[in-house]
């Protein structure tokens, strides 16, 4: 310190020198670039955040994909009561013996029939182990089932069809079944775009909200407010850093879904990228808005949940939002997650061009712009 002092002239001369100091190379560092870089580094150095953004959606897709995988449809389980008459297996007028009935039913690939005593059959029906009990009666059959159980109604139709055929009924028109279990029309195909949308919402809101509130809590925002940093740059850096992650987030889920479940992107990948980007910006804006006032993590968490909960429920992530009543539809359409999910489904499942999603994209852009501007206004720096 002592020898360094010698380099400097005394007060007055030094003051003049200070005023004339040259701009150094670092003067050209762009604050926006630096802010974005720092934000990105901070995120990547937070292992929990990386887990929630990248790993969690894949685990979720896996779990749901397994739960809703396309298995062979369940067989209708039918119990056939042993006939009261001792000879049992003989044809009695217009009916079949128990064993014959079972054989006839089991010929159909969608029925599993079993012969049992009437007490056992009654118990099996009660406990739901069988869906239907078939009992011979004078001149025909009796079906016992619970009509409030859809499986029982199905079993009744299927079993009846088999029995009628065995008794000689013929089809009056030729029918051809076309089965739709190929990729593109399964539940997982519906689910994946919704997961991408939900993930973009979650990582945008949580990622930004926590970071902002933590910086406020640690008085870092106050410190930044004491610099000549442009306040809009600070908020913009959050939006920009989202862009970097967005690529990884979406690519990770899309590639994963394609490799594991064969979910293909039918439309243009560029259109998918544009939609994801606009969606991410909407949620980055919303995240900043939610984080613009709270001072504590608890405070911001509550607000986040309040904002996201309706969208989890209404925006058609796990089932189509068309199921909600008509008077709710305008509200549901205006939610950013609905707009994003619909656009993602259009491009991934239907291969639709961007023009199909124009309205939804405008809704997203409006959310992004309005929330950013309002956040900038409301933002509490200390």
């Amino acid at each position, binding site marked *: *310190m002592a020898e360094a002092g010698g380099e400097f002239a005394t007060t007055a001369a030094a003051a003049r020198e200070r005023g004339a100091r040259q701009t150094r190379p670092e*003067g050209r560092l762009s604050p926006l670039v630096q802010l974005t870089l720092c934000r990105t580094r901070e995120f990547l150095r937070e292992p929990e955040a990386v887990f929630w953004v990248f790993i969690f959606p894949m685990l979720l897709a896996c779990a749901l994909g397994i739960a809703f995988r396309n298995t062979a449809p369940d067989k209708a389980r039918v119990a056939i009561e042993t006939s009261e008459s001792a000879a049992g297996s003989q044809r009695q007028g217009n009916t079949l013996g128990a064993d014959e009935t079972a054989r006839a039913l089991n010929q159909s690939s969608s029925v599993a029939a079993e012969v049992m005593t009437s007490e056992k059959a009654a118990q099996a029906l009660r406990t739901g182990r069988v869906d239907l009990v078939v009992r011979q009666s004078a001149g025909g059959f009796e079906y016992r089932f619970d009509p409030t159980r859809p499986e029982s109604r199905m079993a009744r139709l299927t079993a009846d069809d088999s029995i009628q055929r065995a008794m000689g009924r013929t089809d009056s028109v030729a029918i051809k079944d076309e089965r739709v279990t190929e990729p593109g029309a399964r539940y997982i195909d519906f689910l994946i775009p919704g997961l991408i949308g939900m993930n973009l919402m979650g990582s945008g809101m949580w990622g930004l909200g926590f970071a902002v509130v933590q910086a406020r809590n640690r008085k870092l925002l106050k410190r930044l407010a004491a610099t000549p940093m442009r306040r809009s740059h600070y908020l913009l850096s959050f939006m920009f850093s989202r862009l970097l992650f967005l690529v990884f987030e979406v690519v990770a889920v899309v590639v994963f879904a394609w490799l594991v479940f064969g979910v293909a992107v039918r439309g243009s990948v560029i259109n998918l990228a544009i939609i994801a980007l606009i969606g991410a910006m909407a949620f980055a804006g919303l995240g900043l808005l939610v984080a613009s006032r709270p001072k504590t993590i608890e405070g911001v968490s509550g607000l986040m949940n309040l904002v996201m909960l309706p969208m989890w429920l209404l925006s058609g992530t796990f089932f189509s939002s068309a199921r909600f009543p008509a008077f709710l539809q305008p509200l549901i359409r205006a939610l950013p997650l609905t707009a994003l999910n619909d656009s993602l489904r259009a491009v991934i499942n239907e291969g639709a061009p961007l023009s199909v999603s124009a309205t939804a994209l405008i809704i997203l852009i409006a959310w992004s712009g309005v929330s950013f501007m309002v956040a900038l206004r409301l933002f509490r720096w200390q």
Partner: protein
Amino acid sequence: MRPGMIQAIEESNDLNSTSNIAALRCSKLTKRYNDVTAVDGIDLEVRNGECFGLLGPNGAGKTTTVEILEGLTPADGGLVEILGQSWGAGNDHMLRQRLGVQLQETQLADKLTVEETVRLFRSFYTRGHSVDEVIGLVELEEKRSARVGKLSGGQKQRLAVACALVSDPDILFLDEPTTGLDPQARLKLWGIVEHFGKSGGTTLLTTHYMEEATRLCDRVAIMDHGKVIALGTPAELIESLEADQIVELTTRGELESSTFERLAGVRAVRKKESVLSLTVSDIGAALPALLGEITRQKAELVSLTTHQATLEDVFVSMTGRMLRDG
């Protein structure tokens, strides 16, 4: 402090202020939080190139004052002039380019490295030191790639000062820069502040360590309950006690303290718990007299210490409290 002394100090201030341009000036500054008056009508003038200290216990209103001057907290009343400008007059951006600020409570981002943090702050300013220079100034070269979260308290504080110095500011604000640091870390920080002063910069520093104010500050304002209760150079303030020495003693057996005031060379007597504290102008005359008085009162001396009067004693003599009592 004697009334005459305050006058003398103020006169000398007036003389100096005409020959110096003020870097910073405020008058009748007030700030209230609900029923607390954090700042109660403060007038200050910090001259170009000087290191000015706000010395006071916790809650005196130092941080509030400094943050008003930094343009972070709006005042309820009063005027502020920084480098000849006021806040909110359209020049805030230019003004901030010329100030370096370290806040009392800021925690920088743990996950960034020293270098990344300095580079970020550098990017906000159009002129200033290079990142390497400023890391060198605060002697953090070895830690440049270390995460902020892994730094010691002293290193964190030096980084905070580096972020304040990175623009090579005209005015440097430091709010309790050494609170909670060990003596060695404190010495290092003092070196940085002194170096900045030698390069011609103006510093406004708050502290509740009188050693720090004595060593670093050209002038000191002592604050208590939102008011400036004394102002002057550390030497002037200490002289105003008209005391060479402070004598502190404890005895077995009760002492009647009032009789000590009449002893030769004793200027003031204060009793706090069992410690009798005497402000003494002539230690040679006072010491025999007060030993005699102890014997006369039939008490038994347990301990006796003397020290040169300090700013702490100035504060104690004016408020009856210690600086660190809060």
